[in-house]
């Protein structure tokens, strides 16, 4: 198993009660592998309690990036959230903690 942090980088964004998370391998050759193993279902399970509902995954093949769109609870928006990180900006780091089946 390999932790995503070792092979990819990510940036989180927020729109209303949605978090967007990019996932970009350092080695473009790994992009097809990430497309295969980092499924939206796995990401939803990994991110846990703050993500409610279905995670949707988009491919940006031109730059070799995956994009995960993660719904949060209705009141969990940047102005209303009770969370310390109201934007959810640190969720990129949560994604990179995920482990994938890969030879290190």
């Amino acid at each position, binding site marked *: 198993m390999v932790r995503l*942090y070792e092979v990819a*980088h*990510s*940036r989180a*964004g*927020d*729109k*209303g*009660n*949605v978090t*967007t998370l*990019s996932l*970009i391998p*350092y080695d473009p050759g790994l992009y097809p592998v990430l497309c295969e193993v980092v499924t939206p279902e796995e990401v939803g399970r990994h*991110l*846990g*309690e*703050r993500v409610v509902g279905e995670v949707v995954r*988009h*491919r*940006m*093949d*031109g*730059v*070799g*990036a995956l*994009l995960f*769109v993660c719904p949060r609870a*209705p*009141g969990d*928006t*940047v*102005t*209303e959230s*009770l*969370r*310390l*990180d109201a*934007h959810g900006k*640190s*969720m990129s*780091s*949560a994604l990179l*903690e995920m482990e994938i089946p890969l030879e290190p």
Partner: protein
Amino acid sequence: MSRIRIGCGAGFAGDRIAPAVDLVRDGRLDFLALECLGERTVALALARRLRDPSAGADPLLAKRIRALAGPLAATGTRLVTNAGAADPEAAAHLAARVSAEAGAPMDVAAVVGDDVLDRIDLEQPAWEDGKPLGEHGEIVSANAYIGADALLPALETEARAVVCGRAADPSLFLAPMMSAFGWGADDWDTLARGTTVGHLLECAGQLTGGYFADPPYKTVPGLARLGYPLGEVAPDGSAVVTKLPGAGGVVDTRTVAEQLAYEVTDPSAYLTPDVAADFTGVRAERVGPDRVEVRGAVGRPRPDALKVSGGYRAGFRGEGEIGYAGRGAVRRARLAGEVVRERLGGAVRDLSIEVVGVDAMHGPQAQEGAEPYECRLRVAGRSHDREAAEAVAEEVDALYTSGPAGGGGVRVRVDEVVGVLSAGIPRDAVETAVVRVAARAAERPTDAEEG
């Protein structure tokens, strides 16, 4: 026609000012854009305006204009900004006054008409939760995301500065491109390429290595001296994005990829008032040191309706933190949290109790190793009753003498919460207009002349 050069000197309301001054002085820019308005910032501006009707513009605008007016005049660079926030006309008068005080008087064109509070349909569902807008609480603001078509008449006035409120971020960049190159309003592929460049530039330092460093995997040279980006835009809408050679930071295919995906919810249809841009085929290629060429977006017709961002009164939030250290720190923090919960006795329905250093960011995580040496209890609660929100802060404060041993460093705050909702409005219900504010007499020599 040759390329035009557009810089981005601010990516959010609180952004740094010096990199924008450097860009104008040394970037040979045609245009400088300042993007100072997020979903949250609009709500904050509205909250300010609720307390003080004259305080709707961006609070940092005067400081930005004071620093930029001289360099803008000396280099012939034009300014486009959404720092008008909740009151573009007042912001234009402020910019005219402050630039004159700085010795470089600017004439300013304000774009008004994004405020649609008097005509928004409150029965329509909010995009966030599907419930009618009006059921969320008192709606105190509604601003339509206006596009490049609303900014173009202001650019055509040749005013030094164009100040608007809630325009879509990429439109701040697309409008100068359309103005310079004469692009048609239905040339979707070209507008999509220009929108891609605007989207990349709009968060300023986030394209040049800001919000990127993660050593040793991602290193950013000179992060403290981070330069902000500029785009060298070709007449076909492709562009090279870069930074000033002497500035800190990095522009490469990784920073471009992170920013291209940033806050995008559907890369095949990135919707702005101007176009539906498809980013999925966008390619980024390194063409020199800190120089990346971006091309490949395609466009489809713009959406029929404009997006509206609405603000509503969502009650009050009270927060408090207290720190613990040494053996048993986490145990004492948890006990303190239980004590606060019991003392509040159900007065605050929405209550969040976390231990910073353990589970505040992402909830409980599988951890290896020992407990942290120090941690902070954090309690946050929301209520429509201000006194209940205040009680959260007061009960954390009271942990000094009536909580577990060794708590220190209490910080508390209570805020009014303005919630933000999204919805749509027909284009023909939004009427924008340009208000000219003439330049005033200079009050002292410009910095540029002195320097």
